[in-house]
């Protein structure tokens, strides 16, 4: 009986996980708008805190926008695998006859699409609101596309670990901060360079390299972390 069971192609297994998570994330157009509004509001908070002085804001704009991106990615990723763990989806992923790393990447990509990429797409608007000069907007966009890939992947490791280890908060942040720092610095410098008329491409390349590296290595780390969590 077991010989003739058809298997999905790895690609299809991936895309099913992707769809599952994407649909759960984006039930309706209103839901789709939620992360957007969230970013918008967080951006608004900074002028409220720092004062409306346009010159000062525009000097800080690259750094602020990048820190906001990092913070909000952190806030939305922190519960990435939480519901999967509670509702038993993780058990099922673990017994599925496909590499856990691939399946999990389906989920992570859906998450990135619905939050990271979206943030990057609307970021020029935020740039304008914070007074970022127009010639920095495209680099802001590119740097965030690449950067949110890294942030999401690293956040996913953190989430996988915190799902498992009850007291793992400290461990998670120790893991996540150092890994995120280069992303922040590369991205922020790329934008600052573009604004001040320098050449951002080196920094974008570094960011791209970091994203590639994460894409290659992080899935393995995530699946290892999730397996540990199931045994806890």
């Amino acid at each position, binding site marked *: 009986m077991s010989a003739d069971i058809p298997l999905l192609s790895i690609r299809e297994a991936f895309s099913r996980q992707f769809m599952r998570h994407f649909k759960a994330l984006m039930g309706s157009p*209103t839901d789709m708008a939620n992360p957007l509004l969230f970013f918008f*509001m967080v951006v*608004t908070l900074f*002028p*409220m805190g720092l004062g*409306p002085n346009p010159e000062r804001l525009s000097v800080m704009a690259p750094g602020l926008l990048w820190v906001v991106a990092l913070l909000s990615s952190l806030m939305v990723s922190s519960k990435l695998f939480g519901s999967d763990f509670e509702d038993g989806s993780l058990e099922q992923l673990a017994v599925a006859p496909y590499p856990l790393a691939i399946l999990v990447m389906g989920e992570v990509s859906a998450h990135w699409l619905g939050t990271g990429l979206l943030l990057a797409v609307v970021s020029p608007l935020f740039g304008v609101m914070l007074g970022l000069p127009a010639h920095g907007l495209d680099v802001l966009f590119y740097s965030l596309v690449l950067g949110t890939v890294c942030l999401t992947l690293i956040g996913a490791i953190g989430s996988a670990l915190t799902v498992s280890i009850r007291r793992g908060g400290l461990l998670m942040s120790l893991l996540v901060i150092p890994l995120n720092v280069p992303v922040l610095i590369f991205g922020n410098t790329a934008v600052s360079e573009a604004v001040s008329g320098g050449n951002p491409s080196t920094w974008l390349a570094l960011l791209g390299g970091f994203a590639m590296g994460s894409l290659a290595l992080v899935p393995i780390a995530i699946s290892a972390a999730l397996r540990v969590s199931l045994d806890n």
Partner: protein
Amino acid sequence: MGSPPWFFRFSGAVVRWLLPLTIGLLLLGAAWGLLVAPPDFRQGNSYRIIYVHVPAAVVALAGYYVMAFAGAVSLIWRIKMADVTMRAVAPVGAVLTAVALVTGAIWGKPTWGTWWVWDARITSMLILLFLYLGVIALFEAYENKTAAARACAVLSLVGTVNIPIIYKSVDWWYALHQPASIKFTGESAIDSSMLHPLLLMIGAFYCLFALTVLLNMRAELVWNHREASWLKQMVRNV
């Protein structure tokens, strides 16, 4: 009074003359503002944006109070019609707020040379938009629509208590940090040749608000009462 059949008939009559009136007033005001009124001596022709910007802003603000009042009525007296009103006001208010923001931003480019400034009034308007969007998103998110209306009523009441505080605090915030380079408020000595079309346009936007709210309510009511005999009777008679 307040019963759905009565309201449906009454609002039908109102809509019948309010619709042409509103469109007429809007076109008249727009033509007056664009074609007839003289240009401002400082800002030139860009000031003509005032005829859409200010009415939208004024009515959007008033709309929130209408919504919150409806919310209070719905919570205290459990009147279904108040739920429907609240539900109908939120999108209209949000659209008008967005219009005020966008036209303001467009106005900013020729006058200040920038699309966006964190001015007190602008910032308050942005927060008002967030408040409206919050109500809409909350309503959409609930599955049970009666519960949704009640939740939105709670939210809009909390918002109403808070709005004056928000406005005052944003004012203080701006006054404390106000940068010297931009001067925005205070030139309200407006010539009557410019004022009259503005007042007309504000009136037109109030009519527009009432009209769209009524239309939204009627559409909602028709659906909610699709099984009711009075509505079936009305459909049959048409």
